């Protein structure tokens, strides 16, 4: 369960950021922003072998004491960043991958929508729904 999910465009501006509202959202924005550097680093590292398939899932970008940040980049350099609470029983890598996959799918759905201009912030309710499904759920019930 993520604490913050962000979609960042190729030009490194955010297309979509959503955090669990109870916490300080600005902190997450900063986190995501700093994670971009790590993403760039990872991308460029693999880029040496042109023609080779680059793994889309970047894995754990970096951990802090509070949370962990995972990254995923598409072939069009759109980055997905998920911030997960460390105190959470650490999610398996597979689960994170599946979350990214879901994100990617709904992202492509959004792109397919002819009324969505690429580069606009994502306003699709479907996408919102998917993301909400992935965010920490406890806030809604406690």
């Amino acid at each position, binding site marked *: 369960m993520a604490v913050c999910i962000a979609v960042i465009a190729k030009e490194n501006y955010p*297309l979509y950021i959503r955090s669990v509202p109870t916490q300080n959202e600005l902190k997450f924005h900063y986190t995501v922003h700093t994670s971009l550097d790590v993403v760039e680093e990872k991308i460029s590292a693999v880029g040496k072998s042109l023609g080779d*398939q680059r793994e889309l899932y970047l894995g754990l970008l970096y951990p802090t004491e509070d949370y962990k940040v995972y990254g995923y980049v598409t072939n069009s350099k759109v980055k997905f960043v998920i911030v997960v609470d460390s105190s959470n029983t650490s999610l398996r890598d597979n689960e994170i991958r599946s979350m990214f996959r879901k994100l990617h799918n709904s992202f492509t759905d959004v792109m397919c*929508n002819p009324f969505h201009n690429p580069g606009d912030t994502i*306003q699709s309710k479907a996408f919102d729904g998917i993301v909400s499904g992935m965010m920490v759920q406890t806030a809604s019930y406690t």
Partner: protein
Amino acid sequence: MDPESGVASAGAGGSFISLNEPEQRYYSGLHSLCQADASGTLSSSKVAELFKASQLPPESLHKVTELCGAKRLGYFGTPQFFVALKLLAAAQSGLPIHLESVTANLPLPRFVGLKNEPEMRYSAVPPSIDGQGAQCVSAPGSVCRTPADRSTFRHLEAKVEKKEPWSPPRSPSSSPPRSPLIYRGYPYTKKRNGADSQIAYESKHSSRPIVLLEQHSSPSNYGTKANAEHLAMARASSSERLDQQGAVDYSDDDPWRITEEQLEYYTNQFKTLQPDLGALILGTIAKNFFTKSKLPIPELSHIWELSDVDRDGALTFPEFCTAFHLIVARKNGYPLPESLPPTLRPGVMQQEEDIPDTPEDRSIIERLQPSLATTKQDLKEESCKQAVGMKRMTTSQEKRTLQLGAFPERPEAPQDLDPHMRTKTRPRSHSSTSFEDVMKKAEEPPTPPPRPQKTHSRASSLDLNKLFQQGAPGIKSGWFPPPPALPPRPLTSQVSHFINVSEKTPQNKVQQPNFADFSRFREEEESSVKSEEQGPRSRFGPSTEDLANASKQDGIGVCHSQAPQKPLRRKYHPENQNLETVPPPAMPFPTPTKPAHKLLSKQKREIQMAIRKNKETNAVLTRLNSELQQQLKVVHQERVTLESQLELLRPLAPT
């Protein structure tokens, strides 16, 4: 307070509380049953009645009330009510009454002694009908099949008709004169005789039961949009229930049901965009078309999301009807549903297509689904799948079903048809490691089945791969679909040079669109020229009319009808450099010259082809120009004649 907000959001979208479809419908039906008043709260007496009917011991009822938050609030709001219903279901199935049990998959709560809901609703009409006011609805889209049933409601209708002598379609919230105007003012290029449609509607509507009226009666006092959505759900739920009760029960006055003449109208409109009813309307064309309806873009976007069930970026005929219908409904004031109403689903659509007995429709049906002999729902789904499956890979179905198992709920995905659709339509290879496939499928134009493992092969026949992307192998195969996709590459590289300069500063994004649009324009022309099916020239005939009225872009959008839409978008994305996220040039920007020496000859060929295409484009444009000139002449003529008439009428002109 967290529980409140959580519960509130549970009620609002049903997303947190994860009600599945039947539950949602049932609950909203019950909700409307409880006669909410203006503030959206439910009458506690009705709720108490309902709870008693659940035959649970009173202490558990108290507990339920407490847990759902109503006790704290002092009343039952919508979210509280839903949570309460869920808790009741839990209690009835023996689970402890606790908030966690709400998440479990529960059967619907059973209420004994509760009158049949539809009847309750109907009987609830008379007292509250006077309170209707502008809430009166006679849905624009519904089919009346059994007038006999409606006899009881005729007097109601008469009353309503007297009160609101609108010509259909009616709007639940807008003033009477506005809705017909809106409807008439819908600027379609091929004009259907507005009067005819209005009259046709009138006759249909007059005999239409105002089932919705009753449904609206309880929600009639809703003021909020959220409640209006429950309204839609209630409508959907009632229609669903009616469907369950009787056989295919068309007597429901569901605004989400498409009438025959609407269907005809949609068919005509579809034909103007795409003569072959079995084919797809591409996204851009549909976009241009629906943009004319003057709905705000986010709403159109939402409508698209709802109606494009197979997620291919293009609209089949049933999808088109769905979208059109949603737009019509929206224009008449209906709020957009969160999920596709069951009557609008393509499966149902095709069912309806079977039923109309005009030969035209029959031929449409035949063309659409040759196998659509019977009218069973399963067959519908199958044929749906077939039509879609023709274009989709079947092997991914298993993967898809696996995947569906893994993802229990997409909040807005209707369950019965969409999973099937999804199994076929978006063949994303999740279980495999190739994410390129994912991207690939996303980028593909509607028709061709995805190429499973053709990724990253530099040996692909199309040079464009090398051209536009000197090292993004994964995208290559995605460009396969149309060989004519060649042209823009050289443009891309040219553009990339240009844009590279200003790529650094995001601010320059703003300036770029001008440049970008122009090159997009050029590109679109090329691609349209290069398109394989239904020669662009033939399209230009009708398109010039559009162009006369609409902007040039529209015409070009129409030209797109042949060119696959996705490659197109990708093509002009490079121009809208910083604004898009689609493959092309991420890396080549910094080093556009690097691979040049490698591919010089190929580039030359590309350039030559591009030149040829440009020439063709020029030809097309000159033709366009001449046609526009002619139109200009005509307009001038008219002006001259009018002026002369004016002169005549002015007896003694004081010049």
